[in-house]
């Protein structure tokens, strides 16, 4: 049984840390306070990702034929761990490189690859995902946004909601339907956000200004060449995309950073000697460790190209527990920080609330794990 980081991996980690040390500005904590989805970070991502691109680290995990460097899954993950611990300065662009790119590699045509890859590789574009709708959250297949076939393309009408990054997005990975019902009628359109008829409206929310939006489409024309894959193939593509999205985001690294920070503060105030404080700190620490090691298993599965199982669902659930435990710890022992003194603590509190909802209600993941991992039957359909 081999175990541990290799000297090359350790050097790689040091390299990423040095880069962060060098490239993050003095006011980074202010920029990062509302998390990777905020407008401030979205704007900063264009500066930071350009630097990453210059260093050859933005798309280094992509295959050589697409301009990457065939970086291993573990090296990519190590970098993600360091970036997340620093507050994820790639902002929304982690999505470009982690799943938009890989999805286009697999399902895009040559013209689409030629158009989008250089933009993503230069760190200058922001994609948003047009998935959730007012009547289609966890039940994504019931989405209603229409894509009517017209000459040369599609005419899109409808609305998306809870869309992250939309305010500054240049592109949208948009789901719409060509007929009234069924998964088979859904298409994926690669939409230019400057198209006439696209309107973005911010939704004020507890997780911070600029984080989530409504996007309205009124007779938006999308050229036929912007269809991804074939008509009828959308569900397969979405499943592939979500698999790439949900695994390997080392959010626990951020929770752990917040916990360490809290311990340092309490220590400085002489409050960390209290056995109750130490007990609760130990509790939160154990949950962060458990989440980290569970994510390592998911990464291992990916590195060895093992078939995807529901383990990733369990790992995500563990990450949420860690988020909550760190938040509970800070709320219990540093209430003054939560009530106004400490913007980072407030932001973590908000993120912990959203942790089980953003990127899909966690209960749905539990349903999936129950079916795929424990072989428990599906919920009975209620008859009308």
């Amino acid at each position, binding site marked *: *049984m081999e175990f541990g980081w290799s000297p090359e991996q350790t050097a790689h980690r040091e390299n990423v840390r040095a880069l962060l040390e060098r490239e993050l500005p003095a006011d980074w904590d202010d920029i990062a306070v509302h998390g990777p989805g905020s407008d401030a970070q979205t704007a900063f991502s264009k500066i930071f990702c350009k630097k990453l691109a210059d260093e050859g680290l933005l798309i280094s995990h992509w295959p050589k034929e697409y301009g990457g460097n065939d970086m291993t899954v573990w090296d990519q993950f190590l970098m993600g761990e360091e970036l997340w611990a620093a507050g994820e300065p790639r902002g929304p662009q982690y999505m470009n490189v982690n799943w938009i790119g890989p999805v286009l590699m697999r399902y895009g045509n040559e013209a689409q690859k030629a158009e989008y890859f250089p933009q993503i590789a230069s760190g200058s574009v922001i994609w948003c995902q047009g998935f959730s709708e007012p009547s289609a959250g966890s039940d994504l297949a019931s989405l209603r946004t229409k894509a009517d076939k017209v000459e040369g393309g599609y005419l899109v009408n409808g609305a998306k909601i809870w869309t992250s990054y939309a305010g500054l997005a240049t592109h949208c990975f948009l789901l719409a339907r060509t007929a009234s019902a069924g998964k088979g009628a859904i298409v994926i359109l690669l939409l230019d956000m400057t198209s006439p008829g696209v309107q973005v409206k911010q939704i004020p929310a507890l997780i911070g200004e600029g984080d989530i939006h409504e996007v309205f489409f009124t007779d938006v024309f999308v050229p036929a060449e912007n269809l991804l894959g074939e008509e009828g193939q959308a569900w397969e593509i979405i499943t592939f995309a979500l698999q790439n999205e949900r695994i390997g985001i080392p959010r626990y690294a951020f929770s752990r950073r917040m916990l360490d920070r809290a311990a340092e503060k309490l220590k400085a105030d002489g409050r960390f000697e209290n056995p109750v404080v130490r007990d609760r700190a130990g509790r939160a620490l154990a949950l962060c460790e458990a989440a980290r090691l569970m994510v390592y298993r998911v990464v291992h599965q990916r590195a060895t190209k093992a078939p995807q199982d529901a383990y990733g669902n369990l790992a995500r659930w563990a990450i949420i527990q860690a988020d909550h435990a760190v938040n509970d710890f800070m709320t219990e022992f540093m209430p003054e920080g939560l009530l106004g003194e400490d913007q980072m603590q407030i932001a973590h509190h908000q993120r912990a609330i959203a942790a089980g909802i953003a990127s899909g209600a966690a209960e749905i993941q539990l349903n999936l794990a129950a079916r795929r991992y424990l072989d428990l039957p599906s919920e009975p359909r209620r008859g009308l």
Partner: protein
Amino acid sequence: MSIFHANAEQLELIDSFTRPLEELFPVARLHQPAHTDYDNWVTAAEFGWFGISLPEEAGGIGLSVVEEALLFAKFGRHLISPGFFGASLAAKTASLSGNNELAQRILGGEIPVAIARQAASGITLVDAEQAKFVLVLSAQGAALYPAEAITQRKLLDRTQWSIALESAPIPGNPIALASEEAIGADAKLLIAAQLTGIAAATLEMAVAYAQLRQQFGVAIGSFQAIKHYCTDMAMHVQAARDTLSFAAVAMAEGRSDYRFQAASALVVAIRAALFNTGKNIQIHGGMGFSAECDAHLFLKRAHVLETLAGGLKASRAALAHEHSIFGAAA
């Protein structure tokens, strides 16, 4: 990162190594008040179960704590007497004290050992009625005593906890001693392993029942209220397994953070076992709290092991102590 999880070969090895468990130690034996795992003590010693991670020249099997953790996870599933991990730790303690002859006699099964936990005012002995030696765990490490050195023993209970519990004042003059630095991580790892086994066994029990038991015309496992408990339990099992195997490999390879990892594995495992044994009872409904059902046996044993570890609170504080930033309490 290369991988730290048990491979198929190791699992198979442990499977074949523990094949007699089902026959010798079915969980149902705990329903018999007269049962004692010490009836099979010599047999267990002959299988090499007490010295799996000790070198062959010291009378062990010569494998590592990685295999030992897998073995004790199996023991957890079968609710084997805590005396068995007492024997493993006692042999290590004797050997650390330079008393190899005593270590060999323990490993050979000649001296049945029980385990106890020291608190401020005294010690709690677990399943110690047939033991000739008692290993007392404390925050300072482990101390081994001949049974006769422990006086004023008082039987607390034999039935409520499905195992004999006794109390006694803290004894003096141990025959062998190991410091917390020397033995603490081993103790944490073996307790965590058994608790992980308990968490896994109760998950399987709960899921099997949720698939079988029908209400409103369907299996109760189809209801989200039940299946979400089950998935939560599955998360606890996987968290406990992964932290346990990470800690075991860290110890086997002498990684600098092995004490932190063992402390972490223990906290995660206690939580997993307490959560899963509790939810298993809930999912079993009325059956769950009947004496006839095995569910209560797992909950009780989880609490006994938690107590032997010094309690959940102390275990969390010990983890905080190992963290580089949190550091030592004054």
